[in-house]
């Protein structure tokens, strides 16, 4: 394994100092809770758009998507393409302006206005659990990769990254997060682009890359054929080579058959993420105008077109260069070690740190926003001043950093793919969360009690499906696994959504409608309220 040279360290250090300095400078301007949580509602579209992309593409995605592309092929690009772009465009013109006008600070806050406090609390708890776990996963993902290159232990890397991100997020809040994300987006895309270009040059150009990719697919196919029964060989031979395909058959033995990608990802997880994820929506709530909120999403959608090219394609290059690699999550680190010379390796590691920091800072800030606004202010100090909210927000951010470190150490013993853990966590509640969001926004007749029951039952149903798919549970009950693909997280979200949505519709018809004055301005088709100045 190559080690870093002084030049590499100098580049990494320059990047870290620059980020910290910017974060601390912005932090010095923060005076109130509104400044901290919503950047004083002064953010421009270009910064928000880049921040959206940087937040979405974290270290988890660089390591995880690269690894998944190495294992499953270009199909993972769906997560950035059809799994982002259409939802972002629809969100830009329909949902985001609606939230911006309503003047809320968090999505759970909207849920209380539309439904009741139980729905708000249930959703806020789910988001907090998700974000808290995700923080640990992100820290571990980064530490695994940094340890390979920096000659440090995984434990040391966890402490280092938590310290760096913690300082500027605690200090500068959303504004620091968005502006450092913007720089991180540029560094991250530049760094990944570098690996992509050098990788293709190393393979002898694009044509040679395609030829080698097909050759490698044939080798893998032949190995697979040797393992399967004779009658299945004919069928396997007729299958199209899948590593460069975005659409895989419904019975494909990957977590990404087209049914999951279309119904689970494009129709449920993606819109749930882009219009219902606090970490994502929060920055558009801090936009300086309704137009900026919309433009940020459109700008983000344009950038999203580029992401699979710079993140997933290097996974395919690793598939050609290191076909025998057993751990997909090692694809990107191996490629960097092999491809990058002194200096450029430092630049890529800075890009990787950028990806890591941009996601962690966002989740830290958003988790802190939810705890402060949806729990502390809502239940403990309704009359809390804006200044005291700032102090509480900073304190909670610090506690979340400590928690993230602890959870990262807990996860260290788990050998499952990072990406899979992340997606499974989301699929437990994203379907039900989307069901209450969409019915709340679009259907006047949806009632609070129906939303609460639909959400809770949907989450429980999702966990039940996940449990019924575990080998140990199936063996104990003497049943076959429920799903025939590995890691069926996309299917979990589909069924959880269907159950939640159906329950909300049925129970809403059985319960008393919400008063018209309560839902005014909160549902499409009702009179719009202008946001408070």
């Amino acid at each position, binding site marked *: 394994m190559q080690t870093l040279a002084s030049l590499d360290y100098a580049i990494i250090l320059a990047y870290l100092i620059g980020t910290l300095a910017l974060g601390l400078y912005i932090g010095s301007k923060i005076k109130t809770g509104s400044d901290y949580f919503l950047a004083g509602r002064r953010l421009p579209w270009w910064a928000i758009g880049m921040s959206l992309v940087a937040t979405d593409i974290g270290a988890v995605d660089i390591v995880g998507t690269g690894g998944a592309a190495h294992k499953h092929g*270009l199909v993972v*690009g769906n997560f950035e*393409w*059809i799994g982002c*772009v*259409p939802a*972002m*465009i*629809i969100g*830009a*013109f329909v949902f985001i*302006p609606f939230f911006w006008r309503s003047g809320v600070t968090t999505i759970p806050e909207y849920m209380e206005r539309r439904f009741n406090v139980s729905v708000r609390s249930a959703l806020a708890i789910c988001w907090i659990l998700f974000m808290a776990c995700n923080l640990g996963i992100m820290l571990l993902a980064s530490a695994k990769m940094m340890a390979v290159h920096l000659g440090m232990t995984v434990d040391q890397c966890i402490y280092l990254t938590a310290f760096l991100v913690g300082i500027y997020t605690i200090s500068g809040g959303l504004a620091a997060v968005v502006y450092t994300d913007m720089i991180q987006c540029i560094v991250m895309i530049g760094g990944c682009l570098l690996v992509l270009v050098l990788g293709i040059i190393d393979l002898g150009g694009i044509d040679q890359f395609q030829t080698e990719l097909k050759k490698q697919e044939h080798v893998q196919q032949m190995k697979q054929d040797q393992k399967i029964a004779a009658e299945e060989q004919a069928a396997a031979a007729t299958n*199209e080579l899948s590593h*460069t*395909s*975005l*659409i895989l*058959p*419904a*019975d494909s033995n990957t977590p990404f058959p*087209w*049914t999951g990608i*279309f119904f689970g990802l*494009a129709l449920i997880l993606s819109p749930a993420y882009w219009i219902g994820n606090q970490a994502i929506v929060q920055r558009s709530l801090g936009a300086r*105008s309704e*137009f900026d909120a*919309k*433009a940020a999403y*459109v*700008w983000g*959608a*344009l950038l*999203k*077109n580029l992401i699979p090219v710079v993140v997933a394609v290097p996974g395919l290059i690793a598939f050609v260069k290191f076909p025998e690699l057993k751990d997909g999550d090692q694809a990107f680190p191996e490629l960097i070690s092999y491809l990058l010379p002194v200096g450029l390796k430092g630049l890529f590691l800075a890009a990787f740190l950028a990806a890591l920091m941009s996601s962690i800072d966002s989740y830290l800030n958003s988790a802190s926003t939810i705890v402060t606004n949806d729990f502390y202010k809502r239940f403990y100090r309704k009359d809390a001043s804006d200044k005291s909210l700032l102090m509480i927000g900073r304190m909670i951010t610090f506690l979340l950093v400590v928690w993230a470190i602890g959870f990262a150490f807990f996860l260290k013993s788990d050998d499952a793919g990072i990406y899979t853990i992340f997606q499974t966590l989301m699929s437990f509640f994203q379907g039900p969360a989307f069901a209450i969001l969409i019915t709340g926004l679009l259907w006047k007749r949806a009632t609070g009690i129906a939303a609460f029951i639909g959400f809770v039952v949907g989450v429980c149903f999702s966990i039940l*499906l996940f449990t*019924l798919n575990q080998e140990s549970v199936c063996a104990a009950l003497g*049943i*076959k696994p*429920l*799903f*025939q693909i590995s890691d069926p997280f996309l299917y979990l979200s589909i069924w959880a959504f269907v159950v939640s949505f159906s329950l909300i519709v049925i129970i809403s018809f059985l319960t008393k409608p919400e008063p018209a004055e309560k839902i005014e301005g909160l549902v499409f088709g009702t009179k719009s309220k202008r946001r408070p100045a």
Partner: protein
Amino acid sequence: MTPLHHIGNFIRELVIQIPLWCVRILFLGTLIAVFLWVLRLPRETTTPENATHWYQNLKIWACLALAIQIVIYSIF
């Protein structure tokens, strides 16, 4: 076998019958539908109040993002 297994098997058998070219049309059709919806949006929802230049119309950039998607899903 639980009732959930029976439901799952029934749906699985059903979707396996759908040929991949139909699936591709479904993916492309969805993207084209969103593209057409964006084209039909009223100008006041896609431009700032005092817009003076063509590039301030978000409709153009949204359509560009979707057009790239349509090309990608046509090829891969």
